């Protein structure tokens, strides 16, 4: 049964919701483990069904290599988030709400990955968005969290409206919402100005989710304000959902309009990576810096749309996977530091994720510092990490396609990004700590161990070949 992973995720969410009602805050800690188990089961089921292809529900849902791969990404992200959140939700009365929302959001992302019909895609997209709106504001006593949630909600809703408006034109021109049928009937879109309008609207709609400049305004605020575990979910999961939806809609459905959106993505990719990196240099809040660096990374992934060779798509998809782990891990370590600062009142409580809180982390929380170092080096693309492998494939594909200038821009950006990543490492290792050694929270030890292997390169071999399958199908 190819839908087993989705069913497992939703069922876990429902069970948590049901039994959570009858539990006391203390016993609710168990729910985190339950969610983790459910996600692990879904992961196992996904891996087990790898390679199967199926179309179901009258062709609205199709399981192929791309969707399986992204399902894996989303499940892995939510696994990280749910493990990290065990400590975050310790003795809270709202554990069941948190986990249910996380699981539902994951379900939405998974359905987006395999949606083959725009109606289903939009519904699932909204599911993931709605669940994360509430998650972003989960610390409702914290004005920052609320503000982030509010901005995320408004801009997310506007983007949904834009997307729906764009979809309506695509539907009007082709008379169908099924993605393969749109691809087959795209004559009207290519011959008329409405095709361009639809592309612009859809790019804006997905661009908000992918946080491409100039649709990025919500991202830094939301990533900074939200609880760190949620930031990890947003940056690592929700953003990838934007990409997988864009892969489906642009590369498959609107393939005939390629020249139009290719140009748009070229501009967006270059502007996004440059803007993200330049602004990140000036940040003093680590989560905000990670948010801007996340913009830059989105710019790199968007290069896949620009180059559009099988190699570039492989690179883009692989980068999405690597980025999910690197960025998710980095946010979780930042969350650990914020947790330490706020619970032990050892630093700037106004901006708990200030760079100063990371001073001497190598001594106070050696494990967290080491993990963070690995993650930021992976983000900077230093070998031997998966970040390097992904950049290697992606950037080299642009050269293969003859766009050397784009590769040069990307590589220069990559070098620039090293500057602020290295600054963070400097704060962690080379400046004297302000506090004494503290305990590493958030089940971080286990969690980082989980992610290290993925940040190291040997994970790359099988993944490359797996995403290669998809490219062969589509071309």
């Amino acid at each position, binding site marked *: 049964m190819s839908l087993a992973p989705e069913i497992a995720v939703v069922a876990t969410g429902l069970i948590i919701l049901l039994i959570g009602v009858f539990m006391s805050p203390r016993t609710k800690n168990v729910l985190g483990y339950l969610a983790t188990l459910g996600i692990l089961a879904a992961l196992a089921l996904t891996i087990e069904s790898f390679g199967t292809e199926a179309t179901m529900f009258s062709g609205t849902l199709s399981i192929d290599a791309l969707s399986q791969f992204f399902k894996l990404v989303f499940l892995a992200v939510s696994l990280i988030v749910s493990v990290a959140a065990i400590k975050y939700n310790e003795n809270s009365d709202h554990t069941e709400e948190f986990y249910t929302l996380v699981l539902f959001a994951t379900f939405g992302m998974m359905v987006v990955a395999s949606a083959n019909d725009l109606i*289903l895609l939009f519904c699932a997209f909204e599911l993931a968005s709605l669940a994360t709106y509430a998650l972003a504001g989960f610390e409702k006593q914290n004005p920052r969290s609320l503000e982030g949630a509010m901005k995320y909600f408004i801009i997310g809703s506007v983007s949904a409206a834009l997307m729906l408006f764009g979809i309506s034109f695509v539907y009007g021109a082709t008379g169908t919402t099924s993605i393969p049928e749109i691809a087959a009937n795209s004559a*009207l879109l290519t011959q008329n100005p409405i095709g361009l309008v639809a592309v612009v609207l859809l790019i804006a709609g997905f661009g908000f989710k992918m946080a491409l400049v100039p649709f990025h305004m919500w991202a830094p605020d939301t990533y900074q304000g939200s609880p760190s575990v949620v930031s990890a979910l947003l940056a690592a999961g929700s953003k990838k959902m934007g990409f997988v939806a864009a892969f489906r809609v642009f590369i498959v459905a609107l393939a005939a309009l390629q020249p139009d959106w290719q140009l748009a993505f070229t501009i967006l990719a270059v502007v996004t990576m440059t803007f993200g990196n330049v602004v990140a240099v000036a940040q003093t809040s680590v989560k905000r810096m990670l948010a801007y660096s996340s913009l830059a990374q989105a710019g790199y992934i968007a290069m896949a749309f620009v180059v559009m060779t099988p190699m570039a798509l492989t690179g883009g998809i692989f980068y999405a996977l690597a980025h999910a782990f690197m960025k998710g891990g980095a946010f979780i370590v930042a969350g650990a530091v914020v947790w330490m600062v706020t619970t032990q009142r050892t630093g700037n409580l106004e901006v708990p994720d200030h760079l100063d809180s990371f001073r001497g982390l190598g001594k106070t929380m050696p494990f967290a510092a080491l993990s963070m170092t690995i993650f930021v080096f992976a983000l900077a693309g230093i070998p031997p990490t998966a970040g390097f492998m992904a950049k290697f494939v992606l950037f080299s594909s642009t050269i293969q396609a003859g766009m050397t200038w784009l590769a040069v821009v990307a590589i220069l950006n990559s070098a620039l990004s090293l500057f602020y990543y290295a600054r963070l490492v400097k704060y962690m290792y080379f400046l004297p700590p302000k506090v004494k050694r503290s305990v590493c929270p958030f089940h971080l030890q286990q969690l980082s161990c989980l992610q290290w292997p993925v940040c190291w390169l040997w994970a790359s071999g099988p993944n490359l070949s797996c995403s290669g399958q998809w490219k062969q199908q589509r071309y």
Partner: protein
Amino acid sequence: MQINRPLAFIVALLFTGVVVLGAFGTSWNTVSELPQNPADQSNIEGIGMLIFTHYVAPFEVLSIVLLASLIGAIYMAKGEGNR
């Protein structure tokens, strides 16, 4: 997000212009005549059939959406713990 009114007005105007130009400049494939007979216009049955057959997957997803928004809205709107 708050931008000043003239700029917002220009943006909105541009937007209308682009979309209207796109929509009017397109030769849509339309049916020659809309059904005039009220009996032919009734589509409740058709929509119902579609929702429960062809579009059952989005329908199921929608149920989860409603549940998620219910949880989220209730959680956010509940007053305890606030100042």
